[in-house]
């Protein structure tokens, strides 16, 4: 058996020079790019301009491709909103006009009404803080898609959460409940909002509806966190009542929640929705345990 060894050919001097130049220049690009990036980040952006402000005009010139153009404009809306959020900007000047163009091009692009209204209505810096603009967009959506009850639901939510106009929210939920295919709870929701005007129960009802419906795990978790906070707040209110009762009957304040169990007011030590026992602080108020994962701040 013979062994043969083939050694790699030595690189020519010219090739060596090329390799050295290549590596040096590649390394040299890094500080230049970093310098450009750091300076450009401080530059103020150019004024925002919408070159073609009319969706109707675009529709005429789309040569029948208005659906595709609407998709492109909707993508532009998402990119615009995302870019602004990443830059922590509080100015969303083009958001409304871009949504208008998108829905002019395709009045049945429901996603543009639903998500667009969230982008517009959410408070700054999460959104544009323009709930009235969001309502205008949704009403245009309702005119173009009268049978789609979800748009009424979105109108109701904006009145409820952002404008705190509970009668208007109730009217929107009721109008939505009369559309074909609307969920039964829309009518319940309308009744509750109308009767209670933003009380604890209504909020709970809305959050539980979101928790059941949400396809996104993060949204569902957020809703569940809210529901846990509601439950804890209710528990604390009930325990405060029992403590007051104990005080009036025994003629002295309870030193711990265990005292309520011993006196027969409670069957066992109460626990919050995350499973951690409630505590009684020295001032006689019930509070969450240090290991509790319930966040009462969500209700503020």
């Amino acid at each position: 058996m013979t062994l043969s060894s083939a050694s790699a050919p030595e690189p020519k001097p010219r090739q060596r020079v090329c390799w050295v130049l290549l590596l040096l220049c590649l390394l040299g690009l890094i500080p230049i790019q970093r310098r450009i990036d750091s300076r450009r980040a401080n530059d103020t952006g150019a004024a925002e301009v919408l070159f073609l402000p009319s969706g109707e005009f675009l529709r005429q010139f789309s040569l029948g491709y208005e659906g595709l153009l609407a998709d492109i404009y909707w993508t532009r809306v998402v990119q615009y909103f995302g870019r602004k959020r990443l830059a922590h900007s509080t100015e969303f000047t083009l958001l409304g006009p871009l949504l208008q163009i998108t829905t002019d091009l395709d009045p049945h692009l429901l996603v543009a009404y639903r998500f667009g209204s969230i982008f517009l209505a959410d408070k700054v810096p999460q959104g544009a803080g323009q709930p009235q603009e969001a309502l205008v967009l949704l009403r245009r959506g309702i005119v173009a898609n009268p049978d789609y009850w979800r748009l009424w639901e979105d109108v109701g939510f904006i009145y409820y959460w952002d404008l705190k106009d509970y009668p208007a929210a109730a009217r929107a939920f009721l109008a939505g409940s009369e559309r074909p295919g609307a969920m039964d709870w829309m009518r319940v929701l309308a009744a509750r909002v109308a009767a209670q005007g933003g009380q604890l129960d209504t909020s709970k009802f809305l959050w539980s509806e979101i928790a059941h419906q949400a396809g996104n795990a993060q949204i569902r978790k957020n809703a569940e966190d809210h529901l846990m906070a509601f439950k804890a707040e209710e528990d604390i209110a009930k325990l405060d009542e029992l403590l007051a009762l104990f005080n009036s009957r025994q003629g002295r304040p309870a030193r711990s929640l265990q005292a309520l169990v011993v006196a027969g007011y409670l069957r066992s030590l109460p626990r919050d929705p995350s499973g951690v026992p409630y505590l009684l602080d020295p001032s006689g108020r019930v509070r969450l345990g240090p290991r509790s994962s319930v966040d009462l701040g969500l209700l503020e």
Partner: protein
Amino acid sequence: MRVATIALHTFKESVRQKVLYNLVAFALLLIGAAILFGSISVGVEQIILVTLGLTSISVFGLLIAIFIGIDLVSKEIERRTIYNILSKPVSRVEFILGKYLGLLLTLFVNTAVMTAGFYAALFYQKGALVRGDLVFLGAVYFILLELAMVVGIAVVFSCISTPVLSVVCTFCLYVIGNFSADLRVFGQETQNALLGTVCDILYYSLPNFGNFNVISQVAHAEKIPSYLWVGNSFYALLYLVVLMSIAILIFEEREFR
């Protein structure tokens, strides 16, 4: 000297191509049409003219750079003229550099023609040209730097691949180069350290064409900051050395049968 001779011949060969005139004619037509687009809008007539005009120069320059750039080497191989050239006292380095500089000259002349058309349209719209209009030349300079890099990329691919594949690869790299800032953001946002490092490496090694885009800025009559003049010039220069080194390394190793 030999490099200059090859460059001059490449230039003469390029200007004979009909596609070049078609593209320049289309660009001039679009620049002229920008006046019309501006007139049907409100308050942004000049912005539309500047944006559309400079974009036309950039896009058509890009098409010229790609479609003529990929033919530079592959056509010589296909027509077997490469044997004649390399059998003469011409090194492969001189051949590549000459070809590259020839196309660069072609692009420079074409861009000059398109820029003249752009300023003519601007003059027609405004009735006069003022000193502030010189700011647009800065954008044209950046477009030229960008095109010089695209030609470099086209030459690299032309050395290793077929013309069709070279067009696709060059165009893809151009598109990626315009999104490299997003690549960086993606790297920063990701929770994965390895992925973040890979994104960083790609960000710094792939061409960043976003640096050269100042069209919106000059359309609003904003001056181009000095750091961009200096930074972009050096960036393009270093990147061109990288591309030429790669092209030479590939071409030196290539065997012609």
